[in-house]
């Protein structure tokens, strides 16, 4: 099996089969990352935009660099651009999503709770929690993806957990969390 980095070199010279293989390998992790970052909105479009940016930037990808942080960095930048364009509040979606739950399963409710919990975080803290907690990436890699020092990742994670604990204790995300964006 060819390494992702080798496939990227092939994408840089226009190899569609290499791109198809990369899409197949990274479809689920990338989709989940985008879904968690945006609260499930416009994920298909962001997924496509991420890959288009990957293809556009393929010529600048250096082979010595690991592919995953590079891909996730592009995905996170897509999400930031999307949030800037839309000026959205992740909490809005969580609230909307909770309304039509028609007394449904506890799994859906739990997922909505998790979504609300994540939405209560400022974007910068949410990025750290999603990458560290859901994708289980080491702090160094999270720092590389977010373009900040590892110490900043640690402190954001610390503040995020403290905030999440406060939210869980309070029973629901507070309105004060809405305005807080990093």
């Amino acid at each position: 099996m060819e390494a992702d980095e080798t496939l990227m070199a092939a994408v840089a010279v226009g190899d569609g089969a290499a791109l198809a293989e990369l899409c197949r390998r990274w479809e689920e992790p990338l989709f989940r990352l985008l879904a968690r970052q945006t609260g499930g909105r416009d994920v298909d479009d962001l997924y496509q935009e991420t890959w288009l940016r990957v293809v556009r930037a393929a010529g600048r990808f250096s082979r010595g660099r690991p592919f995953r942080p590079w891909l996730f960095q592009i995905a996170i930048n897509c999400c930031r651009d999307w949030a800037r364009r839309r000026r959205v509040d992740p909490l809005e979606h969580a609230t909307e999503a909770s309304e039509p739950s028609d007394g449904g399963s506890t799994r859906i409710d739990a997922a909505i709770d998790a979504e609300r919990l994540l939405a209560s975080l400022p974007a910068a803290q949410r990025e750290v929690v999603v990458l560290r907690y859901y994708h289980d990436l080491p702090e160094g890699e999270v720092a590389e993806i977010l373009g900040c020092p590892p110490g900043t990742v640690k402190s954001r994670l610390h503040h995020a957990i403290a905030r999440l604990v406060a939210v869980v204790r309070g029973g629901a995300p507070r309105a004060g969390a809405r305005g807080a964006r990093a």
Partner: protein
Amino acid sequence: MITCEDVNEMRVRGRAPADDALAHAQTCLRCQAEERSLAAVAGVLAASAVPSAPAGLSARVLTAAAPLLAANAARAARRYLVRALAAGLAPLPAILAFDLWLVRAAYDLLTRFLPDALSLYVVANWVGLLALLLALTYGAIPFLAARQTPALHPRSA
């Protein structure tokens, strides 16, 4: 001395509390409440399920990326051609200088045995042949470069 903040710090960083921290946590009500909250947070986060990528999403991406891939292929082909031409043209001055020296030497040698006009005719023919060979060689570079461009030989899917 271990404080509640130290214990909390270890938990947040995902580190197993040291013995003294563990002893502190077992007797401290604040730490125990904190631990319960952290467990609750972990439980809620773990329950988060996002839907899988819809079928056909990657196919849509590949369709949308086709023009960009074609642009990448064209760019790669151009880069490859420029490199091949540069590699081919780099020794050209030396080749021309050597050919000139050879033609002059041949003309000098021929004029010793043949009339000047005939020597000139033979050497001119030779120069023409050399020029034709050089033109064919350099003319073939773009075709050879195009055949060898990696983009034109994609891997099987």
